[in-house]
């Protein structure tokens, strides 16, 4: 029931009860088949996502590796990344590691959007794919390639022509990720 889910969710991160209820009703309304889980089509039903360049990748991010269904726990888990960062977490459990909405985990979420093959490195091709998704058709492949090269150059410190997660964190240290990857209503 809802209580069990809420309990689970509270383990993941601290979200208020009213927010959980609201999000659960949203989950429910997306779930056409009423089987307690969302499939990719349920997400694709949201029209705005079709015109979001990263829409499909973001949808994928909800689904754990190799699965086609996501239950409410998984739904909340992904959304929990976007909770604003708080200094005083109520359940700072040392065993659970960093909370999902920590700066590093937010960056990890973004990193995994780029890194499709999950080898913990953004290769030039993966970066090209993302850039291609985000950029119009007027820009040629060569131009895009040079942008990708330049981008990798800025981040790559160990010269392997790809961006590892630690390089990713380092090069984005000045960006206020806490602001850019947080949604107020999750607070």
């Amino acid at each position, binding site marked *: 029931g809802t209580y069990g889910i809420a309990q689970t969710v509270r383990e993941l991160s601290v979200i208020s009860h009213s927010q959980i209820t*609201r*999000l659960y009703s*949203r989950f429910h*309304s997306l779930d*056409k*088949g*009423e089987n307690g889980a969302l*499939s990719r*089509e*349920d*997400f*694709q*039903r*949201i*029209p*705005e*996502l*079709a*015109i*979001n*360049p*990263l*829409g*499909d990748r*973001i949808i994928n991010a909800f689904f754990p590796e190799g699965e*086609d269904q996501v239950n409410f726990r998984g739904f909340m888990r992904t*959304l929990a990344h*976007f909770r604003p*960062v708080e200094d005083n977490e109520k359940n700072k459990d040392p065993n659970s590691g960093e909370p999902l909405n920590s700066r590093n985990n937010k960056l990890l*979420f*973004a990193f995994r*959007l780029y890194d499709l093959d999950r080898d913990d490195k953004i290769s030039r091709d993966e970066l090209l794919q*993302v850039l291609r998704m*985000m*950029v*119009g*058709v*007027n*820009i040629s492949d*060569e*131009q895009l390639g*040079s*942008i990708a090269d*330049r*981008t990798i150059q*800025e*981040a790559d410190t160990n010269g392997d022509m790809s961006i590892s997660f630690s390089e990713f964190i380092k*090069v*984005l240290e*000045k*960006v*206020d*990720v*806490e602001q*850019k*990857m*947080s*949604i*107020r*209503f999750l607070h």
Partner: protein
Amino acid sequence: MAPYSQLSFLLTVLLIFGALCVTSKVQIQSSSERQSASSNTGSTGESTSNSSASITTVPIVTWKWHHVETPYLVALWILVCWLCKLMAQLNSKLKSFFPESALLIISGFILGGIVWGADKAQTFKLVPRNFFYFLLPQIILDTGYFMPNKLFFSNLGAILVHAVIGTCWNAAAVGISLWGCYLGGAMGNLQIGLLQFLLFGSLLAAVDPVAVIAVFEEVHVNEVLFIWVFGESLLNDGVTVVLYNVFDAFVSLGGEKINAGEIIKGIVSFFVVAFGGSLIGVVFAILISLLTKYTGKVQIIEAGFIFVLGYLSYLTAEMLSLSAILSVTFCGVCCQKYVNANMDEKSVTAVRYAMKVFANGSETMIFVFLGVTAIDTDIWVWNTGFILLTLLFVLVYRFMGVFFLTWILNRYRLVPIELIDQIVMSFGGLRGAVAYGLAASLDETRIKEKNLMITTTLIVVYFTVILQGLTMKPLVKWLKVKRVSPTELKLIEKVNNRAFEHILAAMEDISGRIGDNWWTRGWKRFEDTYITWFLMKPEARKNRDYLFSIFHKLNLEDAINYVTEAEKRGSLAFLNQTDGTIVNFEKKLRFSGVMPDIMSELDFGNNNVQPTSDTVPSVSLNIHEHEMKRMNEDFNAHHLLQQHLYRSRKNHRHKYSRSNFSINQSEDEVQEIFQRTMRSRLESFKSAKMGVTPAKKITKHPKKDPNHKMSNGKTTDKSKKHPYGDEDFEFSEADSAYSGDGPRRFKLTLSVAGVENPAFIVAPSQGAQRYLPWSPRNLHRLAPLRISDRSTDSFLMADAPATEESSEESPQQPSQRDGTHM
């Protein structure tokens, strides 16, 4: 610079000064002589003209000082003040240590000393009327015009909290504490009462915009911190005016007449003054925008309209006893967008530079005169207790107020304001000329201790401007306050910023809550439909989404770099030496989309003038790649990225609604993204189908009905529940995607039937059966999406041998999805 040139400047200034004093003295003497003479002879009205009938011969040259006296003195003073500023800038050692405003005040001391030495009286004072009517308006107009609107309005709540509550708290706390201390006997004997203390507190309460700009622009703190302090300093004028007038009225009425009615009137007057002032500003902004819509033919002077109307807004508000500063601020804030869009580029540049000249010039004069005014024995009344206690209370209560209010605000903020920033914010509560002006306009018949108040105000002003200004930079460095990063963002940061925006927009859509953006969206939609239609020139309106200051600036930067490079090599002839070089200087007014850059909005501070304007780009450099490699490669990549990155929906979200897309040039973008998304989805379905998972079928029904509103997946599916639970859903794009652009309308409906269980229903639903002719049972090879009015392509995937492919016209009724299964 060499010390000799500095010395010569100093001597020039002093010389001019001496001339000023001498001539003024001569003028005083001569005018007194003339007056005595005229009183002797009994004739009046002759005292200003020397051309009485006492000449004996034709004069070749006459001394006409009295004719030109006032304008001459004014001009000389302006010259002297600006020379002081020049000297302050020349001395780089001094400049890095002292804030410029402090140096100007000190120059004012020196000059005041000279004048006083010559005249034994301070003939040149900062008269409140001159200050409020001639020196202040242009500064505030400048700040409003260059206000970073996005930053300002997104922080407006916090700014208002600080401006209103903070200022009231300051006024009340300082007034009451001083009164308490007075009762306790710390100040000796004064003819003063509680109301007068409150009046004094209210005039000292306000943080001064001039001082804040002057100090903060040299320090470059991060933008949120800046906008909080700066916005507060502007908006608190509403409160200051009210408090000052209310307490002034109370003092006149006398303590006995104050009852609940008067107090309520005071509170009401706050709302009237504040909102009335802002409203006047907005009205004038509308006037200016409307005017610039039609001044295309008088480009030469269209820049001038802004100044005149801005000034009129100030005076109008002043005339109605509303808040003049708020009026001018909102006038500048609201008109900047439309004015910049409507006016020719050259006019925009003219306005920017002229604004800066006026504002800077005025600021310089204000600070110099603040110094000059001090050297006046008439006003100096020393009361140690009063002065020291005032200083103490002003500082302490500022800190308390800021900390308390920020603590409350932090509970509602995404990213809380740190303690360090709060310290800087408290420390940045500078008082300045406005406080002095208010003090000097006190009525000394009612307020016996006016001179004491003036003295104290001056001391507080000096303390905050000089001492706090001095220590601000070291403090910021020591506390390691987050500063504005002067370097441009790296490519990867830009890409990621844009990616974050997309991600955030997607998350907001998925979770169904708009969060903060609801109001912004609604406002932007309203603004785009009605206001820009009203206030912007049609050409400007068409181009405004193609205009991005980044694009133009980048182009101009490219051009400048290119020419610089060319000059290094001798001439532009080097172009011909490289093959494949294409340099197109063409009038390009179209490009697909640009990332809005906060950097363009970071133009705060009087000295920070951007060299380019942000109107129609008249030049688009299309420099070929080879050439770019030889030059600075950086800006090419940035340039390309800026040019081609899709705007995230957060930024053109205002053009998007759940029920219909509004007319927008971003339709191309949207189409591209949409096509790509659909293509990839179909591909993935196809590959999934080839694999183990059951087939998923896709049918696509273009809809022609222009009146059909977008159907949300939710509502449509509610009405059709398949008993077998198959995932029948529909994806439908909003209709009227191009509603503004003429009759061409396109709607896309995509329905996918996801099949969970291969052994599934075969019988389509009743609804589906009705529409079967348009929804083929069999699915064929995917065809690329074609966006057209008349196409009725269906995109199907082969599951069984393909039999039919529908190519009929789509149904006329607004029909919905259906699903077919195989």
